[in-house]
């Protein structure tokens, strides 16, 4: 910036610089997120196919819902889609609830003082760092019906009489997905809760101890209300993550019908069946669900988005 700037006030210079600094990011995001998203939404109103993305017709809402020879067709009339929706929501609710409870227990344990605390904290980060594909594979092997260590252990302990087909049984497979997800993401939740716990003021605990209040009561009346904001944010992030679940389901159970999530369903239509129009319709719906949830969270939670540069 040169002489030219010297005619402008500092505020104007900074605002102009801000837009110049933002421009590359905004252009890239528009290119790799905005444009593809718009194309996906557009494709959802067409009969495009993967092999020939340029030759398609506009077919209105037919991918979503259409009456054809007296029958309702389209995504909204597809029981497989609704099954995926139901399963995804169930998965998100169950896994996030478990992660909240377990994460809280782990965080409380790690908040206490004991030798080698740093080491334990490092250890619980490991599941989180392992690539999802790898953890899916590790657990698939552990849950293997014939040779898996889990069936071996349960048989040896006499808890089951015959090997359980964890990943093939439609009733159990989704639970298996939940278990692996909980294993992988509880550390994330626990560390966020731990960070919140460590910012709590010590004096109200001392006051509670002086007053002789039972620790359990202290937890529910003091700790929980104080860390609730952090907890809520962490769980919302996790829930939005869980609603998008793909890798884990796809690799752990090969996306079989019993575990198919919304993302897996959409990709199957899109890539395996080459039906870009229909798959895009599913993707668009998933996007809408998550967008609406995010928006309501932002509005309700009044997340601080416009904070000032602090001192």
């Amino acid at each position, binding site marked *: 910036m040169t002489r030219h700037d010297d005619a402008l006030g500092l505020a104007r210079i900074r605002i102009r610089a801000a837009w110049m600094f933002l421009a590359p990011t905004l252009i890239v995001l528009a290119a790799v997120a905005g444009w*593809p998203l718009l194309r996906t939404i557009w494709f959802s109103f067409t009969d495009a196919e*993967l092999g020939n993305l340029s030759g398609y017709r506009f077919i209105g809402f037919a991918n979503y819902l259409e009456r054809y020879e007296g029958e309702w067709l389209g995504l909204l009339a597809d029981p497989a889609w609704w099954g995926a929706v139901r399963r995804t929501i169930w998965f998100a609710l169950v896994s996030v609830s478990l992660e909240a409870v377990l994460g809280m227990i782990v965080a409380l344990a790690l908040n206490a003082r004991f030798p080698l605390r740093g080491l334990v904290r490092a*250890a619980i980060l*490991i599941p989180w760092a392992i*690539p999802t*594909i790898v953890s899916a594979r590790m657990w698939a*092997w552990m849950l293997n019906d014939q040779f898996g260590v889990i069936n071996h252990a349960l048989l040896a302990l006499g808890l089951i009489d015959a090997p359980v087909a964890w990943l093939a049984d439609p009733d159990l497979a989704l639970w298996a997905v939940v278990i692996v997800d909980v294993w992988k993401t509880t550390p994330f939740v626990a560390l966020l809760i731990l960070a919140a716990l460590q910012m709590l003021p010590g004096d109200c605990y001392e006051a509670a101890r002086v007053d002789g209040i039972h620790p359990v009561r202290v937890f529910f009346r003091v700790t929980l209300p104080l860390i609730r904001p952090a907890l809520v944010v962490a769980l919302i992030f996790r829930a939005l993550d869980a609603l998008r679940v793909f890798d884990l389901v796809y690799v752990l159970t090969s996306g079989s019908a019993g575990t198919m999530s919304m993302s897996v369903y*959409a990709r199957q239509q899109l890539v395996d069946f080459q039906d870009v129009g229909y798959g895009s319709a599913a993707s668009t719906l998933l996007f809408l669900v998550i967008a609406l949830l995010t928006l309501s969270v932002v509005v309700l939670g009044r997340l601080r988005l416009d904070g000032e*540069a*602090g001192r």
Partner: protein
Amino acid sequence: MNAARLAGRLAFALLLLAIILFALFPFYHALVTSFRSGSELFIPGLFPAALDPRNYALVFTQQNFGRTVLNSVLVAVAVVGFSMLLAVAAAYALGRVRFRGRGALMLTILGVSMFPQVAVLSGMFELIRALGLYDTLPGLMLANLVLTLPFTVWVLTTFMRELPKELEEAAYVDGAPPLTVVRRVFLPLLWPAMVPTALLAFIVSWNEFLFAFTFTLSAETRTVPVAIALLSGGSRQELPWGLVMAASVIVTLPIVALVLTFQRKIVSGLTAGAVKG
């Protein structure tokens, strides 16, 4: 120490043990399995009978795993480098300058980081094909920016906000234009925040599966997660578990090492990204 307190301590120790076991056992199990071959695999046992490195050799000879790891590293490094470069500039604008529309922009960027990957899949597929990048590493780098850029912008913005206002003002009084302020004053001060941010972005790219699985086809452009997902043995029925676990250990160890080294910083990066937001 009375009996109740002793029991309490014991229960706490058991709880810690359970946590550690739950966290580490699957990885330990994978490690043990990776050193077994053939029928040894199917004998239950918590300890390796012998350290048989055959699987590790096989992964590199049979599966061309070296190339795969290199692909993952190239993609991750390029994506992280580019994301950080753009994000530092954007973070100055979003974190320190008050302008009309800033809140809406922050919201949009946060929104992009919430995008389900499949929502951009068909549009991205078209874009990558149109640019002639299908089945190439640059195509993957482009796609992965969706995942890393909003996140890095968001985290660096929260860190940028914390830096003292007077430093910036002093630099302006010293006659520095905005670019110099960012480059000479803020960038050096932001290093402690950039390390964990870059690391988290690296992990995101390293672990990415859906894009890599959809936008590449040949073995030459495969990344690590795709290679592991596609690993299969001679028979359709049973996977070569020893091989799979050896590959898993190989790709996990560097990440685990990084995470353990930067443990504290990663936690600060995570909390900045999630809680302060």
